[in-house]
């Protein structure tokens, strides 16, 4: 089957299963609305959904930028300096040991109901996967190539730029794919704890008013954002590492 058609077939299959569950179980629409009802809601409330989707998407994107920036900074510092690594590694582990969800109320308290607390949540949740992936990639550079660079009179920095960073790109791209998948979770959890806009906020309010079809519509939009982001990051990763696809001859 063509790889272009496969996602479409999977999406249609899931919709069919959803509709089948609605029909076979006889669950009333205020518990589980069918795809038809939710589609109607998607169209009817499109401006509302788009507005909140825009807020959530900005939180996710800003969080990814921030988390990737600090994650890369952390990983590169750890590779450049043994001394720094001894200090930063425990910090990295601690950053992962504290459940980010438990931090959500504190972040909302500190940073307010606006964008900042959700950006911080998304950044925190992707910090560990991004840092760990890049660190792993940087440390997996071929020791022979590093030796060669040394005999060529390369400085630490130029070795990093010309040898280690390109070698780490595939691992870094994997880290970013994980980040794209989990960043929306961070943003939405942040919105649930306290917010005035965003898809998480919309879902919470819809749930309070028993607007179950709106909840599902928001959920669908969120899924589309997450999948789109993942596909984009995957595609970018592939574009940045073209030599990987030709490795196996």
């Amino acid at each position, binding site marked *: 089957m063509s790889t272009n058609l496969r996602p479409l077939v999977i999406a249609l299959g899931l919709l069919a299963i959803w509709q089948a569950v609605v029909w076979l179980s006889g669950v009333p629409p205020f518990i589980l609305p069918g795809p038809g009802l939710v589609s109607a809601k998607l169209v009817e409330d499109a401006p509302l959904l788009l507005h909140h989707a825009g807020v959530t998407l900005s939180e996710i994107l800003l969080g990814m930028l921030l988390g990737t920036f600090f994650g890369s900074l952390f990983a590169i510092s750890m590779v450049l300096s043994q001394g720094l690594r001894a200090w930063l590694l425990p910090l990295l582990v601690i950053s992962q040991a504290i459940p980010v969800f438990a931090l959500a109320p504190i972040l909302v308290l500190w940073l307010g109901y606006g964008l900042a607390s959700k950006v911080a949540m998304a950044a925190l949740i992707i910090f560990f996967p991004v840092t760990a992936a890049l660190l792993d990639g940087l440390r997996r550079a*071929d020791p*022979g*190539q590093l*030796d*060669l*660079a*040394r*005999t*060529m*009179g*390369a*400085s630490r920095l*130029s*070795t990093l730029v*010309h*040898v280690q960073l*390109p*070698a780490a*790109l595939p691992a870094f791209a994997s880290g970013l794919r994980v980040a794209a998948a989990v960043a929306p979770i961070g943003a939405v959890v942040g919105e649930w704890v306290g917010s005035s806009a965003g898809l998480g906020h919309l879902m919470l309010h819809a749930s309070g008013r028993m607007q179950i079809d709106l909840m599902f519509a928001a959920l669908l939009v969120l899924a589309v954002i997450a999948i789109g982001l993942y596909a984009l990051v995957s595609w970018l990763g592939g574009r940045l*590492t*073209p*030599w990987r696809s*030709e*490795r196996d*001859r």
Partner: protein
Amino acid sequence: MSSNMDSASASYTDTHPPAPALEIAGAAVVFDGEELFSGLDLTLEGGRITCLLGPSGVGKSTLLRFIAGLAEEASGTVRLSDGSAVAPKLAYMAQHDLLLPWLSARDNVLLGARLRGQTPDIARAESLLADLGLADAATLRPAKLSGGMRQRVALARTLYEDRPIVLMDEPFSSLDAVTRHGLQALAAERLKGRTVLLVTHDPLEALRLGQRILLLAGKPAQLREVAPPAGPPPRDLQAVGMGEAHAALMASLQAAKEAQ
């Protein structure tokens, strides 16, 4: 450094002052808590190919890495007969091509210049590649090249560095016999006039290329001279006396291996 298109195939001695000798004194290296050798003295005559043979694990590669300044837990001195610093005068070629998979053949040849922040001499890199029969491969990435082609790119990268001292660690050992034979001749030709230390486990390679042959054996390892065949490298393996020389060298290697 000349960007003259003819420089690629010209002999080193035509365009450079004679390559200095490399003097190693009191070399001692500990590897995995074990002393591989200590108090090792060796002078590599300038402008000649010295082949270093020995059983595996004896410390051939480690001696090479020591000279290149890559060995940890090492002591001893390495100096050049002209008194200049060693590191900027040497080029290193390993068993694996060590090509960066994301760079084209040409950019791999230019790696040293990029790493040192120098302006890459693209014309020279291309003429070196063309000279080694890789004119059409300059823009291809390593994954698109055969093993022999990759090692030729590595040779071009070594030649681009244009250093009087060249250290080679079994550079042909991962190639098939035919490719290896061709590349040995090519390397001997292009490295003529430089001070070369070639580590190998192949006695035929040493007989073919070595103007001096050394056997590293024992624990801690010591060096022993083996008389090289007459004539300039690359030598014809069918020549009279090659068979006897090979048999004698094999016997020495065998004895060295049993003494391990």
